[in-house]
């Protein structure tokens, strides 16, 4: 990251100003931070790049001349990185390279928050989240032999030396040991006499940026993390980089899942998902981008686990609830619906067993061996709401489509709508129920408007807006309110943020929800 930052300019291009011309060899990597940039073939606009997108990355990396010229379509702020530095990083770091390649392929453009990784988030994230293991330390009067044994036992390259109050006073590293061997220092010498000092410390509540600056300014590999002067952890420059790249780890894990050979290996990978979510949340990634990543990974786990079964006709496994609509909660729980012919009844337990052993938390499992309509009529309202999110994952797709057809007309039935009305009948708004109130209502509205495709709430709202079903302002405000609540919920649950919602934001959310309720009432026909 320092490589990148040490070659960075932040440039504001006024509307109409040229960023580069065509047939030019560009020496920079242009990252749009704000505004909008147009790519021109002579005077024809052939493409645009907006916030968080990179302009002509493949051209700049492959060192060919530009086909197009680029001009700012509005006042735009561009982060410009020196291309030779970007290349250096790509050569050194394969993960980062993989990450950039994905980026260039265009698939993940909108997800990228490279700028946030180098900017505000590293100022705001605390050192405490980077500490990933308890510190290995020894007391200053222990012998060199004891300390070496301790290092071997814990498989570490250095230990922090502390005084009786566990305050760090020095560090013993491999090079200190080598030096003492050279000087033929006896192994009974106290560690205090061979250690390096002082050890550089950082408070656990300081920011990652501060830690980073310390690593740079002292040219060291380890920092002792202290709370009230007492040692609480050690971080290495590697930990820091690992965390700064937590997003690229998402890519690695999904690759590993696909390559995993047995259930055990798969399980080891999938139990890391919750900690990956925590990391991503701590780094300030938005709820939609985390959910996109989580869905990609978890779907891969599910498919891999189920791949040991032959897909057969007459049986389908369907995802329902939050995860069905590609959203998630912590801890991640997967609700399922299995639809099938009577003859499959006996084999269902095999599927559930495999899924439970894949390391994922399986929640509710509904079984439907009946006629779909009959089955749906037998369900309580709350279960029906969950099933509206049904999404196919494995088995007989035709069977799933038949089921979905039966489901499609359900929200138009009067008995069902009457129950939806009860959700919106209450004049008070309870904070905890807002997320459900929004996602359920929007989902039902989707069905009413003839869109039974399973989608995340924010995508559905976007569809409403583009089809003119909901006013742009309300759709935007509601999306913002929903994502804010989801994000806050997530950060509270992952312990990355303690404080509750700001009072002003809360008031604003309530206002938006009131408006949304009116909209729903209008739709349900008793405005």
């Amino acid at each position, binding site marked *: 990251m320092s490589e990148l*930052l*040490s*070659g*960075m*300019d*932040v*440039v*504001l*291009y*006024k509307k109409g100003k040229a960023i580069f011309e065509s047939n030019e060899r560009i020496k920079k990597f242009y990252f749009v931070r*704000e505004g909008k940039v147009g790519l021109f073939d002579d005077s024809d606009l052939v493409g645009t790049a907006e916030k968080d997108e990179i302009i002509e990355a493949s051209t700049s990396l492959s060192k060919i001349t530009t086909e197009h010229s680029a001009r700012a379509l509005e*006042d735009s*702020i561009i982060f410009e990185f*020196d291309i030779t530095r970007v290349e250096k990083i790509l050569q050194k770091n394969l993960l980062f390279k993989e990450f950039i390649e994905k980026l260039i392929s265009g698939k993940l453009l909108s997800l990228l928050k490279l700028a*946030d990784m180098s*900017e*505000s988030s590293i*100022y*705001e994230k605390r050192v405490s989240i980077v500490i990933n293991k308890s510190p290995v330390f020894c007391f200053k009067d222990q012998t060199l032999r004891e300390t070496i044994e301790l290092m071997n036992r814990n498989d570490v390259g250095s230990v922090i030396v502390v005084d009786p109050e566990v305050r760090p006073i020095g560090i013993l590293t491999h090079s200190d040991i080598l030096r003492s061997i050279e000087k033929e220092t006896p192994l009974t010498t106290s560690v205090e006499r061979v250690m390096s000092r*002082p050890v*550089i*410390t950082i*408070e656990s509540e*300081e*920011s990652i*940026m*501060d830690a980073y*600056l*310390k690593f740079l*300014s*002292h040219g060291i590999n380890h920092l002792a993390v202290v709370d009230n002067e007492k040692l609480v952890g050690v971080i290495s420059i590697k930990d820091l980089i690992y965390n700064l790249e937590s997003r690229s780890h998402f890519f690695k894990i999904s690759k590993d899942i696909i390559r995993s050979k047995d259930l055990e290996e798969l399980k080891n990978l999938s139990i890391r998902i919750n900690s990956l979510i925590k990391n991503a949340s701590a780094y300030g990634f938005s709820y939609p981008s985390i959910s996109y990543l989580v869905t990609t990974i978890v779907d891969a786990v599910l498919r891999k686990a189920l791949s040991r079964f032959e897909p057969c006709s007459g049986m389908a496994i369907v995802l329902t609830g939050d995860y069905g609509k590609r959203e998630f909660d912590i801890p991640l729980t997967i609700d399922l619906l299995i639809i099938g012919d009577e003859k499959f009844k006996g084999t269902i337990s095999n599927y559930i067993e495999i899924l439970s052993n894949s390391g994922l938390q399986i929640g509710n499992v509904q079984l439907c061996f009946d006629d779909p309509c009959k089955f749906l009529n037998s369900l309580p309202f709350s279960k029906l709401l969950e099933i509206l999110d049904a999404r196919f994952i494995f088995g007989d797709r035709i069977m799933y489509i038949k089921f979905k057809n039966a489901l499609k007309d359900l929200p138009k039935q009067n008995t069902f709508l009457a129950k939806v009305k009860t959700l919106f009948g209450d004049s008070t708004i309870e904070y905890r129920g807002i997320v459900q109130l929004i996602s359920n209502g929007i989902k039902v509205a989707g069905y009413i408007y003839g869109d039974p495709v399973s989608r995340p709430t924010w995508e559905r709202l976007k569809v409403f807006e583009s089809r003119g079903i909901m006013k742009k302002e309300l759709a935007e405000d509601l999306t913002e309110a929903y994502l804010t609540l989801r994000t806050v919920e997530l950060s509270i649950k992952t312990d990355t943020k303690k404080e509750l919602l700001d009072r002003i934001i809360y008031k604003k959310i309530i206002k938006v929800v009131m408006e949304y309720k009116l909209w729903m009432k209008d739709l349900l026909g008793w405005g």
Partner: protein
Amino acid sequence: MESTEFAVLDLETTGLDVKMDEIISIAIIPMTGLQIHFGKSFYSLIKPKKFHERTIKIHGICRGDLDQAPTFEMIFEKIFGMLNNRIIVGFNVIFDIAFLKESAKKLQKNHHKKFELKYLDIKEIEGLILLRAGIPVTPFIDFSDLLHKYQIEGTSRHNALSDAYIAARIFQKQLNALLEFKITLDDLEMMRRMQIF
């Protein structure tokens, strides 16, 4: 103004008293017109002559850090080189300049005379922009208001480099607005003399 050389400055000090307190860290980010040369920025901790316990609370800089830091004298030439011939920009920057002058004076090399530098304060510029937009100027513009107005992420962290970076991002947008209003540096100077702020 589009090709004017600026230097965004931020200092962390042991306190607010120019005579008594000392500089403990400095960050300078050069700018040319609307370009922030973050890659050419300079950041250093500075070893004070005596240690002031209470600054740890504000800046999170501990004694151990400062022990290994260079003294003001050691980096003076570098600082001077980066500020010379550039217009200094910052938030309440007059305060930072006063500290620099005082520290230079203590070096007893007549350097302080050289610190008669031109400066711009982003708070004052904001006042001018508001005035142009027909909004009466309030003297109570704080850093977080500016962050909010210009939609810049981040909070003032009491780290000289991050604060200077944020100030540069604010100034960049202000400068863009000034260019739109066709306000020149001379206008700014005149406004200051007329004590409009």
